[in-house]
């Protein structure tokens, strides 16, 4: 199978053929359900919203992976902790105007989670930094389990809610036109994603710290010789990943209902997005995330929602096998790694 897909032209051909087939199937199934343009647009819109969250999470994966070579299975935990902390703060009875309170809650969620991330790196990754990959994987998995357990312990199994950010005078925070619905929160999510991307760009391209991180990513030994302390970089990368995850969780919260186990699936999807983007490139991660969001939402829409995860993971496995370097390109990873 691989050998067939060796040559570039064949790959392109196969990819195009696959896409055409995919679209055909979608349209066929959608037609059977009596979908009109409205439904497709709606599915795609929602998909992009969900995908943007995946993208934010995927960025976290990429930052950690680039610097430490670790895939942090606890990334989903950061998302959950960001959301839950924000909710918890917002539910405090404080003599504050709601808007200010919400803003503070958001900050609290992100900062708190960043600290959690830093702690995680110091307490679990740092002591085991010389261990076998297998060990590291299991450790990050363990950290995730722990975080989820703590959340359950503190907040129970109830779904909470965070008010939508926008004070726009919209009837229940929804924009409607021609039967298509768009949550005002979606706009916030996209804006956040854009800001984060720009911020990351400036951080990596313009600041010394960012450059140091990149140096670490390119060649740890060399970076070390240049006087960059890899362990500090690792710490920094985890803190950043945590912050990114938390931001994702916080902006997502109003559009869903934060609950203690929300992190697992989001984390996995974020990882798939990162893989689609080639695991090493930030823009790749974003494209991957949005693509994944749209694909699975449309697929689930035209078939059964229960199959949602299957689509995501089939995509994952296919990419791991046939395009380990990601569909956007980027470094040769995965099978070759």
């Amino acid at each position, binding site marked *: 199978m691989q050998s067939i897909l060796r040559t570039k032209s064949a790959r392109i051909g196969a990819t195009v053929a696959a896409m055409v087939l995919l679209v055909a199937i979608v349209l066929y199934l959608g037609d059977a*359900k009596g979908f009109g343009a409205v*439904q497709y647009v709606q599915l795609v819109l929602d998909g992009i919203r969900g995908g943007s969250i995946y993208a934010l999470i995927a960025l976290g994966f990429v930052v950690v992976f680039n610097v430490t070579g670790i895939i942090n299975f606890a990334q989903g935990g950061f998302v959950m902790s960001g959301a839950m902390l924000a909710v918890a703060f917002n539910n405090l009875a404080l003599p504050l105007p709601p808007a200010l309170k919400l803003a503070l809650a958001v900050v609290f969620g992100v900062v708190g989670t960043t600290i959690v991330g830093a702690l995680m790196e110091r307490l679990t990754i740092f002591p085991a930094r010389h261990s076998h990959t297998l060990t590291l994987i299991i450790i990050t998995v363990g950290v995730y389990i722990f975080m989820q357990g703590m959340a359950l312990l503190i907040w129970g*199994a109830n*779904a909470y809610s965070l008010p939508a950010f926008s004070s726009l005078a919209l009837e229940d925070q929804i924009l409607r036109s021609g039967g298509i619905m768009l949550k005002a929160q979606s706009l916030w999510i996209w804006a956040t994603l854009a800001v984060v991307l720009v911020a990351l760009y400036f951080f990596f391209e313009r600041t010394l710290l960012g450059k140091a991180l990149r140096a670490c990513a390119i060649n740890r030994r060399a970076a070390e010789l240049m006087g960059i302390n890899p362990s500090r970089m690792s710490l920094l990368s985890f803190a950043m990943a945590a912050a990114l995850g938390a931001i994702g969780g916080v902006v*997502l919260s109003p*559009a869903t209902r934060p609950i203690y186990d929300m992190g*697992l699936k989001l984390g996995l999807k974020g990882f798939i997005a990162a893989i689609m983007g080639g695991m090493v490139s930030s823009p790749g991660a974003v494209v991957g995330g949005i693509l994944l969001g749209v694909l699975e939402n449309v697929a689930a*829409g035209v078939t059964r*929602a229960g199959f949602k995860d299957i689509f995501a993971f089939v995509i994952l496995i296919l990419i791991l096998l046939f395009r380990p370097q990601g569909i956007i390109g980027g470094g040769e990873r995965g099978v070759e790694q």
Partner: protein
Amino acid sequence: MKKRAFALLTMITLLALLVGGCGTPVPPPEPTTPPPPEATTPPEATTPPEPVIGTAYKLGFFSSITGPTSSLGVPERNTAEMIAAQIEEAGGVTGPDGVIHPVDFIIYDDESNPEVAATVASRLIEEDEVDAIVGGSGSGPSLAVVPLMQEAEIPYVSMASSRAIILNPETGESYKWAFKTPQENFHSGGWQAAYVEAMGWDQVCVIYSNDGYGQDCLAQTTAAMEEKGIEVSYSDSFEPTDTEFPQIASVVASGCDALVIGAVPPGAALVTVAAREGAPDLPVVLGHGVCNATMISAAGAAAEGTVFPCGKLMYADGLPDDDPQKALLLKYREDYMAFTGEGPEGLSTFGGHGWDGVMWVLEAMGSLEDGLDLTARRAAIRDYIETQITNWPGTGGVFNVTPEDHLGLTYEALGFVKVENGTWVYFPPEEW
């Protein structure tokens, strides 16, 4: 060579042990015929002058205190503890011979997981050697323990709704040892269908949670709807952890007149919100699984105007005074709030299901002569529940348990309510 011989020997001996071990089976318990049940005094009855203290009875209880269905399991657990406290005050249950038996409540968490449920159930049966078991917030855990109860021959009262818990779907016979107290999705579906019909709608969509409860909802609702010639034009499942709801697009596309949601909170709340956003004009009909405050707090504004069948507990004060349940419902509400220190928002019909189940068992225990052995007590309790729970007003309705029907409720047990300004309002058919 020697190595192999030795190893083989090991295996053979082990097998020998296996068979040999089974050669001496544990003696099957012979159920002694229970004493003819007499008119019994309720547990809180005043105790005779000089009380004789008999052997302590044990009541096993498990519910989903953690996990996805903990919003059901926690109030159930609270209720059990409340009753335990009351019984302790009363000193125990008084038998027909005036002997007072203290009752130990043993409470476990099934973590909303059938496997764990099975484990704690066998704990209760074998380790704790309880007289009877009340437990199972969700259908999954309940279904998982029924076979154990049948084999161990111990009376079991479930707090979950699926009919398969008490009725063998293949033979159509009731399981001898399994009972349950909650109204069924079949009753719930009946109300839903009646309402949809009254509204003159002929197409509905169903979205149900991806678990035993949700599936039962789908099955029963569909059955009830088809009885009235209403078409279920689209149905799909969802999961509480979903963030996007592509189902709504299909709902809109299918052009149905109303959306029926078969789930318990918080999942049900998520779908309700999504539906309100995706299809604001589409009426939403819920099941009786959402009769607790979690629903309203989680769904917020989206819950407004939703209608659903619901146990009378939630709106007891709105009931006519001649309602046989009213007094008892009000008392339960009072006791519960006093015990947990929560406001009315803490109330839920699920706690009520727990109350009914535990009270059945206690009443049955009250019918036992002193000095019976465990096996006999178990058998007697079971027989009492099957034969003596008639016209028995509970929180879930007026029960008439029979050998054919180990639940004994009709759909009148449920009422119909509407959510208005964040609370339930009695919404009887004449107001439709």
